[in-house]
């Protein structure tokens, strides 16, 4: 896009570029030399390490990293639910696009074209890289088929979402929001509850479920913190500050070791449920702060204008403040999602088989024990997290820019 409008200019020459960007002052030259040498040495070491490394431990244990102890004869369920999630993603993207396009048409603005394949691959290449690495480690055609079908379903759903007539858009949104439940049912109908989940799947599940359950609670807390009723406000502030003052691990310990004491003895929540409760209680406090930030972004003139029109406090909050506040929180919410995704690795510490724990399991298998193979398994886990977090944070920044432009 930018390259097309860039004026053609004389090539300044590599030498000029180097002098300007690397050697402009003696200090800069020195820094370039030192840093360049260090980076070169590191790069060479990295290449030699990768070339010499034996990735058998990953090949053998790939399923352990991705789905943990999920019954191996039921893996098609994982593939199917991945397709359902892909359908949801594609549908939502399509609906957002067609919604924006419809509004632009009404307002007589030029249509923003849908992202091209090149743009999409530029935006999501880290995720593609992870999938490619995983497929490169597989020994059966199953995963490749699953990825291909998920991609296909996603693209079809995206086209569908774009083509939906405006009257039916509302129903399609409802459908899109019901799809995660369908994915959940696909995974669980044969009695494989979330206590048997593991690997990356467990991390993703805890992240999504945690945010989903914590979101309503967080909004209530944020509203409570804004409330003019001193007791409601006091309770909300106390909860938020108490939770934000302690590390997640203490809540996980509480959930795993002490939650039972606070419930009737007959009610014994399962392991993952305990963890999910702890994560929800923790996350709600942080989401409350994010939403509060959104409220701050709504200028006081908005409330005054609504009041002068005769809207009640409740109507003002619902129709004027909340829509603007929630819109303003989207980037920060993505940030919160990222940080929860990273935090889900903590469940490994209290004994749940997530993707980080899988690295430990693999390294204690008889074939790989005590060979220092953590330097192969951990970077693999790191790649998965890095790709997810980096992509999401870039998307959040992109959203921030877009939302910023549309306003005022």
């Amino acid at each position: 896009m930018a390259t097309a409008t860039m004026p053609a200019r004389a090539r300044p020459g590599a030498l000029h570029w180097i002098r300007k960007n690397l050697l402009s002052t003696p200090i800069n030259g020195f820094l370039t030399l030192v840093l360049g040498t260090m980076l070169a040495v590191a790069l060479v070491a990295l290449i030699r390490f990768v070339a010499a490394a034996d990735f058998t431990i990953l090949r053998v244990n790939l399923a352990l990293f991705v789905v943990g102890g999920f019954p191996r004869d039921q893996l098609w369920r994982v593939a199917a639910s991945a397709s359902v999630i892909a359908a949801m993603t594609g549908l939502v993207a399509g609906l957002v696009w067609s919604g924006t396009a419809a509004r632009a048409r009404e307002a007589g603005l030029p249509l923003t074209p849908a992202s091209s394949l090149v743009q999409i691959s530029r935006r999501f290449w880290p995720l593609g890289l992870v999938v490619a690495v995983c497929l490169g480690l597989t020994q059966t055609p199953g995963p490749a088929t699953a990825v291909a079908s998920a991609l296909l379903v996603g693209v079809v759903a995206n086209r569908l979402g774009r083509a939906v007539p405006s009257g039916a858009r509302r129903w399609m949104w409802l459908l899109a929001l019901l799809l995660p439940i369908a994915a959940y049912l696909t995974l669980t109908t044969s009695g494989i509850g979330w206590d048997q989940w593991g690997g990356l799947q467990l991390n993703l599940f805890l992240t999504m479920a945690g945010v989903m359950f914590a979101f309503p609670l967080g909004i209530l807390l944020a509203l409570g913190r804004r409330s003019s009723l001193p007791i409601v406000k006091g309770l909300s502030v106390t909860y938020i500050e108490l939770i934000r003052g302690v590390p997640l691990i203490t809540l996980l310990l509480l959930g795993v070791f002490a939650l039972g004491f606070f419930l009737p003895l007959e009610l014994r929540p399962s392991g993952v449920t305990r963890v999910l409760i702890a994560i929800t209680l923790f996350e709600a406090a942080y989401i409350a702060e994010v939403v509060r930030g959104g409220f701050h972004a709504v200028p006081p003139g908005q409330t005054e204008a609504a009041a002068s029109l005769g809207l009640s406090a409740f109507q003002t909050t619902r129709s004027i403040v909340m829509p603007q506040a929630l819109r303003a929180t989207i980037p920060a919410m993505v940030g919160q999602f990222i940080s929860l995704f990273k935090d889900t690795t903590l469940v490994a510490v209290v004994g749940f088989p997530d993707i980080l724990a899988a690295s430990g399991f693999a390294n204690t298998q008889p074939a790989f024990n005590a060979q220092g193979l953590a330097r192969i398994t951990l970077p693999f886990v790191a790649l998965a997290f890095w790709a997810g977090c980096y992509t999401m944070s870039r998307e959040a920044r992109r959203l921030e820019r877009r939302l910023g432009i549309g306003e005022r």
Partner: protein
Amino acid sequence: MRVVAQLVAVVVAGLVLYILWFNLSNNLRRLGIRTDFDFLSQPFGVRIAGSDLSPGSSVREALLNGVRNTLALAVVGLPLLTIIGVLVGIGRLSSNWLVAKASALFVETVRNLPPLLLIVFAFQAVILRLPAARSPITPFGWLVISNLEIHVPGISSGARASTYQLILALSVVSGVVIWWSRTRVQARTGQPHHRWLWTLGFIMVVAVIAYIALDRPLTISLPVLDGRVITGGFGGLGAFFAVLGALVLYTASHVAEIVRGSIQAVSKGQTEAANALALSNTQRLRFVVLPQALRIALPPTINQYLNYVKNTSLAIAVGFADVTLIAYQAIGNGQPAPQTILILMGCYLTFSLVISAVVNVYSRRYRLVSR
């Protein structure tokens, strides 16, 4: 209406708390677990790596030892991460292409990884692959490194160390007075105050004279390997350095983003206004850009300090005996979980609340008027 809503909130909150408390006391009674804090005096029962505590020491002593270890991570780590964070943050804005790209690479890589993963990696893939404890290596001659412990140079006090410290403290106090009086001089006469020159110069001169007069009260002590015994320097467990290194880098990457964002947030208009007033480059940075950037950066940076302290609880994953690991082991040894976790949370809360209070006072005093 308002009163009713508040009453409802109180009743609901009270009910929830009551049910939780009712269940708790009921269950503890049925299971025969005590509800008091007497267990703090019972023996802890586990030897703590890297400490002199015997397994017979009380739970209380063990927890205090854990708090000390947590604080040690904080005291060493916070200054380190600040320095790295500021350097990398400025580096991202450097005109040197390589420096800017290398800083960006560092930030975008480390920031997007789970801190726990970094800690585990630092321990399993770096520390544990070092030579075994019976044959440590000694690079440069002033480091002693094995996969159990790492020793770095430290400061050892001589005979008159306390006198010297007293003199240093006094010179700092006098330095503040000099700073203040130089400020007054400038305000009165318009002469440049050279506060930094005067103050630091004074302190340096006093420090050097006293150092010579007291016949080297403080010396740098290098760790020395003598057979299997290491003497001198500052030593720590490998796990300590794994947690420290991973968390310092992780938090520094966040601080770097804050630093970069704050400098960029000082608007172009401010720079233009400063230029229009004919301020020099240094004056512009010193009086216009940096003061504003600092005010923008400080609250989120303090927040990162808090996150750092909370993240030290992840030391549990590599067996460094911070307060969380001690609490975890205490529960494992049959001490009552509710009370132990309550104490654990109390430790972190105290720290967080102290820092939040400081931040609140600060932001009330220095709040930038928005717009």
